[in-house]
């Protein structure tokens, strides 16, 4: 453990002695993570908005002609058991006719001869919950046609929620691909700086080996330097992202309103996400350092 403190000190001294190359590596890691993190944060904001807009998503269920009121109640009861169902309203043929007349306005005379019984009973189902709950319930409702007798058609009144869901999924995928690419790029930069560091200290490392140092004693400070580059890069990136979120979030809410954004608290990474990010960046530094060491024989 004491050797580890000694090696940590040496890694910090290495930073102090050759700040240029090390801060270049830290800057690259930070820039890369800011890019990937921005995409992730935007998708988070969209997710919040989508979850909020998704509250009250409506599905219209059209029943067969001549469905009796008892059967309508039975179907309602069945649907109300599903997850996320907030309200179910029965639209009688008469109400349906009145709505259509109201919508047609001046052209209402076109349906003046249509019998009220022409319109079937229908149910307006309001679903509440987050995006996933809404989508799950919508899918379940879609499957009811053909399973529950008396249902002739099911239509999602609002499809935007699903569309935003796709956008979020695509953004997350882009974020993930971007993260993978930037981690590779950062790893390459860390590997190059570690190689430079080894090459400039080759004589020193040979002396340390001459004194009987183990490979671990020789490699640990170099690996710690790589890990430190990753860790510092991630810390800088999270700092920059927090600053960006802190300044842009109030602008977004001022522009579209809290209700539309879906939250009035700052959208940022959770502690687990932050720790994971730091861990991934540090591990990238470690792996890059190890790869650099494997290419040079001390």
């Amino acid at each position, binding site marked *: 453990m*004491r*050797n580890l403190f*000694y090696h940590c000190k040496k890694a910090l001294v290495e930073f102090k*002695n050759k700040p240029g190359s090390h801060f270049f590596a830290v800057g690259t890691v930070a820039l890369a993570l800011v890019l990937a993190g921005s995409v992730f944060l935007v998708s988070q904001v969209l997710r919040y908005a989508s979850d909020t807009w998704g509250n009250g998503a409506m599905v219209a269920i059209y029943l067969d002609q001549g469905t009796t009121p008892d059967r309508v109640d039975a179907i309602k009861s069945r649907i109300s058991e599903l997850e996320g169902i907030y309200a179910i309203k029965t639209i009688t043929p008469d109400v349906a006719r009145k709505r259509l007349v109201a919508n047609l306005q001046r052209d209402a005379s076109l349906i003046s001869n249509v019998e009220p019984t022409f319109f079937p009973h229908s149910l307006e189902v309001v679903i509440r919950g987050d995006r996933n709950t809404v989508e799950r319930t919508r899918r379940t409702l879609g499957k009811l046609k053909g399973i529950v007798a008396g249902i002739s058609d099911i239509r999602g009144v609002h499809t935007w929620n699903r569309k935003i869901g796709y956008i979020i999924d695509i953004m997350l995928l882009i974020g993930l691909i971007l993260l993978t690419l930037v981690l590779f790029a950062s790893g390459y930069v860390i590997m190059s700086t570690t190689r430079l560091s080894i090459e400039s200290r080759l004589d*020193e490392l040979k*002396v*340390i080996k*001459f*004194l*009987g*140092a*183990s490979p671990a*004693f020789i490699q640990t400070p170099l690996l710690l330097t790589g890990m430190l580059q990753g860790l510092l890069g991630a810390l800088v990136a999270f700092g920059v992202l927090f600053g960006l979120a802190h300044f842009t979030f109030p602008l977004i809410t001022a522009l579209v309103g809290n209700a539309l954004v879906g939250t009035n608290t700052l959208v940022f990474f959770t502690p687990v996400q932050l720790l994971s990010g730091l861990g991934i960046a540090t591990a990238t530094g470690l792996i890059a350092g190890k790869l650099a060491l494997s290419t040079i024989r001390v």
Partner: protein
Amino acid sequence: MITIQNLSKTFSQREPLFSGASLTIAPHTVTVITGPSGSGKTTLLRMIRGEEPYDSGRILLDRKEVSRLNSRSLMMLRRDMGMVCQENNLLAERSVLENIALPLRIKGIHGALLRTRVEKMIELFKLEKVAFTACGVISGGEKRKVSMARAMSVAPGILLADEPSAGLDPLQTLELITILFALPLEEGTTLIVATHNPTLLEGLGVHGTYRIRDGQLQGDDCHVELPSEMERFTL
């Protein structure tokens, strides 16, 4: 105990350095290896330390043959076998203190014990004034002192000194050699000194002198009786 049996070593396209050379060195003694430049003194020390392979024969360190040691055993051997090289091999950017402490850290010694050993070496070699100075900027004589202090800091079982007087004036040589030669008595170290100028060592209690000649290690008649355990203790 260091035993060299029928040692042969030839560098490609050159005359053999050693051809069937043999030597036995008792523990806690001072042995001097002499010979002109290029006779193989440094090579012999490097072979003892496992840094240079030999063609045939055996080098036994406490009955373990050096050429058969695996990399881990060699690493452990080097930790316990100090070496003062002609070129000093110091870390130029690190301070005198750090250089002396390095073998101790490699050996896993920390804290008070490390401080005590380093302070002792600094005091012994009178390096107080340059203790915090980087080794790259100190004088040649001071570098030699640091090199010796570093080799001695771990109280090695065996200490190999290659031309310890190189680059030093006679007074500095006497000062350093006196410290070096006190080691077998003070810390039970087996000291092997390689030098082309054995006259510098006259009257300093050498237990055995060997000259490299015609690929052999030829002992002279200056063998001195080793001090007994009791004498070593009282000294």
